[in-house]
């Protein structure tokens, strides 16, 4: 499978297979308004399969959000058709305004003026919990 390389932009590589649309959603990148290519379920030496997102544009990627939704992903910055920088997201200690708490008894379901906030509890298990009710975060 061949996809024309981008000249200036970014490549989000090693996205877990089948999740790239979801990753774009969390990164608040609208595929309807962005020049991008998605390669889904392609072969990966490291993970068996993966998705790749290529964006022909200077997009600011929130690495904290990417680390949260796709920990294994990498970000390549492309200039003039060459990769000039590689970025590796880290697991953020705290995430704000990315996902909603799924606990129906959480105060965030009734107090609409407060931000959804989660904190990292266990990095090996990728476990985040709601700041308010301690419910485990679910993507």
């Amino acid at each position: 499978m061949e996809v024309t390389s981008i000249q200036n932009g970014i490549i989000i590589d090693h996205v877990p297979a089948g999740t790239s649309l979801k990753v774009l959603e969390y990164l608040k990148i609208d595929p309807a308004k962005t020049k991008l290519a998605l390669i889904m379920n392609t072969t990966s030496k490291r993970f068996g399969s993966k998705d790749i997102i290529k964006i022909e544009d200077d997009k600011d990627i929130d690495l904290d959000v990417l680390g949260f939704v796709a920990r294994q992903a990498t970000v390549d910055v492309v200039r003039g058709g060459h990769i000039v920088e590689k970025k590796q997201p880290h697991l953020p200690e705290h995430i704000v305004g990315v996902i909603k708490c799924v606990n129906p008894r959480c105060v965030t379901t009734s107090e609409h003026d407060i931000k959804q906030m989660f904190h990292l509890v266990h990095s090996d298990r990728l476990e985040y919990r709601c700041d308010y009710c301690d419910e485990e975060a679910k993507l």
Partner: protein
Amino acid sequence: MIGKSVISLDDLSIAQIQDLLHKAQYIDAHRKEVSHTCEGRVLATLFYEPSTRTRLSFETAMLRLGGKVIGFAGAQLASVTKGETISDTLKTVSNYVDVVAIRHPKEGAALVASRAASVPVINAGDGGHMHPTQTLADLATLQSRFGRVNNLIVGLCGDLMFGRTVHSLIETLCRFGNVRFVLISPEELKTPQYVIDRINATPTCSYVEVRDLASVIGDLDVLYMTRVQKERFFNEDDYLRLRDTYILDEDKLSLAKPHMAVLHPLPRVNEIAVEVDDDPRAAYFEQVKNGMLVRMALESSVVGDDLPGYEPLNPKEVQA
């Protein structure tokens, strides 16, 4: 601790918890001397759901310190019915009072309140989440019965899955260390993994999970009873089969050590037979008294009023 909100016991250091327990004992022995400690202070009890026992305890605590109390009980009375947020209510009430105790059915409500308030907020129970002063009452009862809160074999019996008081007590005792837990529950109501993880992460603590109370009661220093609620079971047969296993009566108590303490967060339904009340090992009504004493200790501490004649345990650590 002056100006500090207490949403969970993790907000307090071990030294601060120990000092509160020490203060509670001092207050009990010096009730008259401390009766003017918070003169001129006002406590607001904002109870968005009814809880007569807890509200009376918070209010009595402030009254016994010489302060006054305002508040509401039941959200239907409050401006919440007009759509006011918790944050706005707290920003308003902060102008009236020196300390707030809040109870709310939503989990995390007390944290929202503390972030909006300009005075200390004490969590009096936020849904099934946290109820730190209940755990302080439990610890104060251990302290008064044994002179310590660790180096004990602590049995917890009944609904260990949904009981927040149980989780909070286990987690706090793990911070003190040197506790052996005996977790007595039906398979359906076993202790959640995150609580087990906390015990496993504490080298000086250990646990065993069992189903039968009678077979282990003789080993225990403390038996913390909880209610096994019918609605927690998937079918009624299981409930009926297990219900009686977790009722503490004189027969089972006869197998226990003479100085074991029986605790229960109350209210009970039928899990402790009334005949046990007269046994010297029954400590659950003492727990209620200790609840008021620790609330007195906490309210006076967060508003910054010193108890006359009281010497802190470790002043530097407590202030930290």
